């Protein structure tokens, strides 16, 4: 059985969770606040029984037998507060008991080599996420009116997404072909002179904490759309931060994620060096050699507010950066409204153009 960690209030025994507005642990029942440092010792003490209990999952085989392959990827957890059995994905690391709403942390997901190096705690709460979502949907002329009404905005979930952070020094040597043009004329001819140059640039550029999504369930484009994250606000990981939020451990390893980081780092390096070549009418890279030096990867958890919703046969996902508040998510389109706006704007422009041409003719 995977070991669950629940954070109980030393005062009243209720389930406590991390409060993003005060950056402390807070009991929603008695209102007592606890410093994270205080819970660090608590955290270490809670780890002691781990070795005794073991970390292997215990499949509950009561009732029907699982068919072949059905068990793969699943774990069963028991809530210590109410005794409920929770069947969840093997990567789930933090959640709430669906029966008693107690925050729970699956300790085994963060033990040994799986422990994140750092975490950016939530800075914005659920209310802020709701307001951001309403603002995101506002002012969109083509959004079906009924979408926001039918949107289950209260089902916003705070999730810590596992990411790999890559630091690297990019060493580049790039050769360009550049041109300068000059034109002049006399009474009889128009002249054009093109001078060709070879330009060489070499040097280095350092990158820090380039994030790559480490969860196969999270769309990479969605995570990249809510960037950037300020890694200076990252703190050493403690399980207490997860209480009250969902979390997953990574299922895409650093080697696989590294390719994406490489692409982005190389592209940025090319752009940065290209900007140093100035004074030419045309510049083209002929040969580009970029090598990454001192590359290292760290495992972190980044906060996002997520809402998955379905509407009119389509699935829509909204994601808000839990640190900066940037919210993204593609919205559905009312085609009838689009055609109406196109017709009105086209007709108005045509009438205006005709009136202007008549006015010019009259003058």
């Amino acid at each position, binding site marked *: 059985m995977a070991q669950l960690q629940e954070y109980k209030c030393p005062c009243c025994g209720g389930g406590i969770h991390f409060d993003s507005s005060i950056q402390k642990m807070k009991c929603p029942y008695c209102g007592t606040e606890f410093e994270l440092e205080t819970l660090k010792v608590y955290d270490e003490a809670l780890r002691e029984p781990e070795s005794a209990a073991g970390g292997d999952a215990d499949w509950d085989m009561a009732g029907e037998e699982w068919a072949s392959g059905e068990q793969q990827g699943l774990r069963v957890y028991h809530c210590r507060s109410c005794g409920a059995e929770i069947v969840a994905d093997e990567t789930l690391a933090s959640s709430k008991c669906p029966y008693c709403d107690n925050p729970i942390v699956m300790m085994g997901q963060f033990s040994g080599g799986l422990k994140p190096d750092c975490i950016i705690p939530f800075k914005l709460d659920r209310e802020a996420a709701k307001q951001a979502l309403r603002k995101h949907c506002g002012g969109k002329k083509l959004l079906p009116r009924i979408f926001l009404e039918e949107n289950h905005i209260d089902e916003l979930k705070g999730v810590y997404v596992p990411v790999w952070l890559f630091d690297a020094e990019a060493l580049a040597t790039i050769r360009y072909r550049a041109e300068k043009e000059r034109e002049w004329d006399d009474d009889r*001819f128009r002249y054009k002179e*093109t001078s060709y140059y070879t330009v060489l640039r070499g040097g280095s550029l350092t*990158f820090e904490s380039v994030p790559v999504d480490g969860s196969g369930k999270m769309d990479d484009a969605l995570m990249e759309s809510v960037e950037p994250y300020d890694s200076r606000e990252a703190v050493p990981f403690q399980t207490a931060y997860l209480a009250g939020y969902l979390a997953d451990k990574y299922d895409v390893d650093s080697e696989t994620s590294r390719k994406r980081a490489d692409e982005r780092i190389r592209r940025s390096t090319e752009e940065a060096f290209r900007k140093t070549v100035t004074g030419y009418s045309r510049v083209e890279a002929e040969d580009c050699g970029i090598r990454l030096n001192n590359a290292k990867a760290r495992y972190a958890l980044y906060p996002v507010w997520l809402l998955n919703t379905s509407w009119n046969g389509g699935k829509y996902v909204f994601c808000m950066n839990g640190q900066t508040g940037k919210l993204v998510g593609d919205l*559905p389109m009312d085609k009838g409204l689009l055609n109406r706006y196109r017709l009105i704007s086209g007709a108005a422009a045509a009438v205006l153009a005709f009136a202007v041409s008549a006015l010019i003719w009259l003058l």
Partner: protein
Amino acid sequence: MKRTGIRKTTAAVTGTLFSAWALFRAWVLFPAWILFLAWALAVRVGAESPAAGFADRAGVVSPEEERSLSAFLDEVSARHGVDVAAVIVDSLGGQEAGEAADRYYENGGFGTGEERSGMLLLLAVGEGQWHISTEGKPVTGFGEKEVRSAGLAMSGFLSAGDYAGAVRAYAEEADRAFREHGADGSGRGPFPIGRSAAAAAAAGLIVSLFYGGRLKGQLKSVSSKSAASEYAAAGSLKLTRSSESFLYRKQSREAKAQPQRSGGGAPEGTHAFSSGRTHGGGGGSF
């Protein structure tokens, strides 16, 4: 006796008076009348009232057609205040068609006002050439485009040997052009409704597509990042090598279009005749 003397005296006086009146009539009134007529004619000739005409020197048009064409040319001339004339000849006598047309125009005394505004069509049947010579206002009012139009209008008639039809087509083209934008080309033609409507429709279509695209774009906010420039450490760019070397140079040139120049330095699209007067127009062959 006394009565006879008085009668004789009265008769003498009357006779003298009549003689004086006859002399006065012959030597004063009549010349004055002639002079008055001459003055009136001169005023009429010098006024803005155009003198137009049609002459068939080649004998290819019937007298009725000649009268009809003269009347029509007169009408067009009077309507627009410039001479609109035409002449058909057997041969150019070794001259260029344009030179011959200019000469006919000037020697024929055509043109109204100080600018001597008018135009003349010369049809040379022997050489199969035609030329329109313009001076004054029609230089701009009947330019290259109008000359081309007239040529197209006349081509069918000329091919069929219908010279009267060709002259009528020329006169109609001149009338149409001057109605549209005046004899000097500065007037405003009728409002081009069709063209304006087509342009307005195209503008409306472009605006509607652009606006629709912009509204659609508001709904999309998810996109991958191609680079990681936000994660480049500030001030960490270090250039250890930087060089720029010249390779080679290429030069090319393009000749400029030279403006047409005539002996008198006449404006573009016109030429100076041997008399020094500036003519416009154009021609073709059939």
